[in-house]
């Protein structure tokens, strides 16, 4: 019944890991024409489904068994919840009569995932199952997207029932607002017309609602520069003259200063996260704030909104564009140009010197022309990717933003590659993060998923080391990874291709070699150990107080 329902939802790919409480489910899968990707750890299955969902816009589907299988999903579910990624997770549960008896491999996964799912279900009657699956897909992928879990006891999996898949869903307590309030939209139009120094501040909501083209139209028509969050990076072309890049803790100097000097901030699908705003009462102090978001709870949560608009970014922008005239801001753009030249993003790669991580990432950008699908792990390499990889296309980045999950990027790249088989997929990783799910090399080789993993190997947990250097007087506590594995040999042990680059001249060569390889490749980039990510806004400081270099 589950498989039939999944077919009705046009699911053609499931990520999962079998076990005792899902034997029946996997038996049904045996001769079903749905592809199942078995990862080597349940956590990787969720991350892979999450990567798939982020780059395709379709909900990712995960199977796992009860108890440890289900609890292994938790980090992945929390990752997806924080970044509003649509997932449907189906976990096995012990038979109904055994629930609550501490049976073998029993865990109250509905209770455990209560705070990290959009909604969850424990199925108690086979007759409810079709409706629940229908609701789960609807909830996951509508409104503000998120993960939905269905806990399925073994006896329910074995039960027979009539399969009638509902055409519509009726959930009385769930009615997302899609259309923005016209009065508020009119106020936004007027504010835009009056503004002399407007900035668009764009988050993942623009990506998930597919409003990227409308955003480009709005930015160009009103000559408004665009800064994005990490989640919003692929929503606006990084090479566009109006692009300011990312803002926040490791954002560009000019993005942070522009927000600081702006008289109007138009936030779309973004949530004023502390990594973006720094000290919140200093953020965009001189600006009127228009806040467009599908989730009413985000509006006014962290910051006052002068013009609140609850609605889907795409629909709100359609209305907004109907009434918005073109406008020029030559003085404002000149000021931004000045800021860009004042503190540019740069580094100095000596041809024979130590390899710099920024150079490696910029090389990946050059070799892929900004058109690859990129996933990242979490840490310094993630921030350098945000700074130096200029994303050209929407949905071309999958990165754990809200939860900051190390171990996310590599399995996510597998899901991303399966979702977009024609494209080049790079996972930009750190040597620490990659080791959190490196067992998935087996999955990559097993299904010949041709992802390219670029390990920015600095032999440290780089971001933690950077904080220890700056805020704890270089007392490096438990951050050295000097006895890490030989990543080339590790790749080879799994049957993947392993490459290494230690000099600047080798970088483009190994990247081309990797892209010409039909299967999965791991590249070990041995980079300078104590390189830091700058600019950097120290935690809980105003975003205009940036540190630019080691000397400060």
């Amino acid at each position: 019944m589950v498989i039939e329902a999944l077919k009705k939802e046009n699911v053609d790919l499931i990520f999962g890991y079998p076990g005792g409480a899902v034997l029946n489910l996997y038996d049904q899968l045996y001769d079903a024409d749905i592809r199942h990707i078995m990862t080597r750890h349940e956590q990787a299955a969720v991350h892979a489904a999450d990567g798939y969902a982020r780059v395709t816009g379709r909900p990712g589907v995960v199977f796992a068994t009860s108890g440890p299988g289900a609890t292994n999903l938790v980090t992945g579910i929390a990752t997806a919840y924080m970044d509003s990624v649509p997932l449907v997770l189906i976990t096995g549960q012990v038979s109904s009569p055994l629930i609550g008896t501490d049976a073998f491999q029993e865990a109250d996964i509905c209770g455990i995932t209560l705070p990290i799912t959009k909604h969850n279900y424990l199925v108690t009657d086979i007759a409810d199952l079709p409706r629940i699956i229908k609701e789960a897909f609807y909830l996951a992928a509508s409104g503000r997207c998120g993960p939905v879990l269905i806990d399925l006891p073994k006896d329910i999996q074995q039960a027979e029932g009539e399969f009638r898949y509902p055409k519509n869903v009726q959930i009385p307590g769930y009615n997302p607002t899609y259309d923005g309030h016209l009065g508020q939209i009119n106020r936004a139009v007027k504010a835009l017309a009056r503004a002399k120094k407007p900035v668009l501040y764009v988050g993942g909501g623009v990506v998930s609602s597919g409003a990227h083209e409308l955003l480009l139209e709005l930015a160009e028509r009103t000559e408004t520069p665009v800064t994005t969050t990490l989640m919003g990076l692929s929503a606006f072309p990084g090479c566009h003259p109006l692009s300011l890049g990312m803002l926040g803790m490791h954002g560009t100097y000019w993005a942070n200063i522009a927000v600081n000097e702006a008289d109007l901030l138009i936030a779309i699908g973004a949530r004023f996260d502390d990594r973006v705003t720094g000290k919140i009462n200093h953020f965009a102090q001189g600006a009127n704030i228009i806040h467009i978001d599908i989730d009413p709870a985000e509006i006014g949560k962290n910051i006052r909104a002068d013009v609140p608009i609850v609605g889907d970014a795409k629909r709100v922008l359609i209305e907004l564009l109907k009434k918005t005239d073109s406008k020029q801001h030559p003085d404002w753009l000149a000021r931004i140009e000045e800021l860009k030249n004042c503190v540019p993003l740069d580094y100095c790669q000596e041809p024979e010197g130590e390899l710099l991580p920024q150079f490696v990432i910029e090389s990946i950008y050059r070799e892929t022309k900004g058109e690859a699908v990129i996933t990242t792990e979490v840490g310094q390499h993630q921030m350098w990717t945000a700074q130096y990889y200029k994303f050209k296309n929407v949905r071309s980045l999958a990165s754990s933003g809200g939860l900051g999950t190390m171990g996310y990027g590599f399995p996510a790249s597998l899901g991303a590659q399966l979702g977009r088989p024609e494209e080049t997929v790079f996972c930009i990783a750190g040597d620490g993060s990659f080791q959190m799910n490196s067992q998935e090399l087996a999955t990559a080789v097993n299904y010949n998923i041709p992802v390219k993993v670029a390990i920015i190997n600095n032999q440290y947990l780089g971001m933690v080391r950077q904080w220890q250097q700056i805020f704890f007087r270089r007392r490096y506590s438990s951050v050295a990874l000097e006895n890490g594995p030989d990543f080339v040999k590790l790749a080879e042990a799994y049957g993947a291709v392993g490459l290494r680059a230690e000099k600047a001249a080798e970088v483009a060569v190994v990247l081309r070699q990797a892209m010409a390889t039909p299967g999965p490749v791991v590249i070990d980039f041995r980079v300078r150990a104590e390189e830091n990510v700058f600019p950097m806004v120290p935690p809980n400081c105003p975003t205009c107080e940036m540190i630019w270099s080691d000397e400060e």
Partner: protein
Amino acid sequence: MKYILAILVENKPGVLVRVAGLFARRGFNIESLAVGKTVDPTVSRMTIEVKADEKTLEQVVKQLNKLINILRISNLTHEPSVNRELVMIKVNANPANRAEIQQIVETFRAKIVDVSLQSVIIEITGNEEKLEAILLLLSHYGILETVRTGKIALLRGSKVTKNGGVKENGKDVL
């Protein structure tokens, strides 16, 4: 300040824990909570008293609204409404002071529902001030034990809190 929210929820297992869990993890404070079925057996009604500032209350309501099983939230704080709590109080009472206690009970329109040689149980309903007043008076005799329900509230007049809004003669008023 204290706010009173009337919340209609689907009468399903686990809904209470979703609501309580939300309060706990977002750091909101529940002063009191009462829950029971409504005339529609598929719908339960919770009355929650929240101690918060206005901004926090706004977040409480918005976050509660995101719970799929919640049908309707009404803020009754600034509406004319009848608020009641019920308390049972077990007080030391000997033959010498029982008459005195009896007098207090009558003044407050409370009831004695159990009598033993050494104690009585008093049942009283009312708003918070009234309950606090009798508790203060009875504390002179020695309160052995009390139990109280959470606050419950209904709008005055013909207005009702219904799934779909607060309605008066079928028209939305809140």
